[in-house]
């Protein structure tokens, strides 16, 4: 009787929540120096590593608080081809690839709910302002 070859487990599939490329993998750590001068590049001692970690935590926290503060605020997206659209900011996904917005005002009508793709290679200007007191002139990306 022919027996099927045994397998330890099945291949792991994609993570539905992100695009992968785990920054904690050995290959990533070895081949991608961090943008902040990394402890691994110099003979840094544990005190400096601790300080670097604290700085990273502070930056992460600041970024997350910025996102929280933007929730439900009116924002204006400056997109390619000089297109500007206004919406109410909802949330960003974990990789900052998409923004969830409500009441997106487009030239062809208002979208109740929408996902805007963020091209992370170019700058995306977002102007957050108080809906009751909008500025008379908004900055441009010229």
């Amino acid at each position: 009787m022919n027996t099927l070859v045994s397998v330890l487990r099945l291949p792991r599939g994609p993570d539905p929540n992100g695009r992968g490329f785990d920054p904690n993998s050995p290959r990533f750590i070895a081949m991608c120096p961090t943008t902040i001068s990394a402890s691994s590049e110099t003979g840094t001692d544990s005190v400096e590593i601790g300080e670097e970690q604290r700085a990273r935590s502070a930056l992460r926290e600041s970024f997350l608080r910025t996102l929280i503060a933007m929730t439900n605020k009116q924002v204006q997206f400056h997109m390619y081809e000089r297109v500007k659209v206004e919406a109410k900011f909802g949330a960003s996904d974990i990789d900052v690839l998409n923004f969830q917005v409500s009441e997106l005002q487009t030239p062809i009508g208002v979208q109740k709910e929408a996902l805007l793709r963020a091209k992370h290679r170019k700058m995306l200007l977002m102007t957050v302002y108080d809906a009751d007191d909008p500025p008379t002139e908004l900055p441009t990306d010229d």
Partner: protein
Amino acid sequence: MAMRQTPLTCSGHTRPVVDLAFSGITPYGYFLISACKDGKPMLRQGDTGDWIGTFLGHKGAVWGATLNNEATKAATAAADFTAKVWDAVTGDEVLTLAHKHIVKSVNFTQDSSCLLTGGNDKIIRIYDLNKPEAEPQEITGHTSAIKKALWCNNDTQILSAADDKTVRLWDRNSTEVVKQLSFDMSVSSMEYIPDGEVLVITYGKTIAFYNALSLDMIKTVDAPASIHSASLHPDKDFFVAGGDDFKLYKFDYGTKEELESYKGHFGPVHCVRFSPDGELYASGSEDGTLRLWQTAVGKTYGLWKCVLPEELVSENSDTIYCTPAAPEIKA
């Protein structure tokens, strides 16, 4: 007791898988990239099929994908009229190369300094990745869409296959045709083996082997069904092929004898490639999956475990789940 092949199914794509490529062997193992009509090429660990990441950015079907030898860079060719270069460690898009039509094929030189592209505009282009803003060198001549363009002969020459039913060998510097092969029908796939300078071409039900330098024919083998892709084992003792009847065929290269055929896919097989160490081969299908197949069925390798008869729990036990002895290398 004979062992039956257990293919490992890699799911994740939502549309047909049309191309796949392995990297060379790196200190972190080897890697596999798959091109899919869902527009989201994926990187996987080559020996296990474990998903590592998805390259996000293309706006259309991805027709071709490749990795450089070190698996530090990836390149993809898509229906959105672009070829893209990616950092294969971070997944970030590094470069977008605009074309005037669907791009079908991408290929790095050995040192990853240049990228070859080919597609429906019938022009082969050479991009210097150190000067991406510069205009690419163009090679014209094909009269139909280019399916595949590959560097050969130490990156001094280029092999291309197109829907004009020709395979052409070009000199990189002069951009002139050195030699040309004509067929009665379109070539469905092409693989270049640098070690030994062998070219594997498929058309109709035929798998043909040529000397890549002279384009002299070495041999041809006919399969039971129309073949879309074939791959020669690094040791040149076997080759595998797949096509319209959903099956994978394994042949003896020396005797041309069909050794085995494997069912598993639920759609035509579009691409098949041996891993760089020859221990497995990967196939991509219209059914949206990639499958990994063992070259030596029953051998312990990757996720496959050799189990002696007395270790089987019961007659019906087909799989054993246990923690692997050594930590897995994850990229």
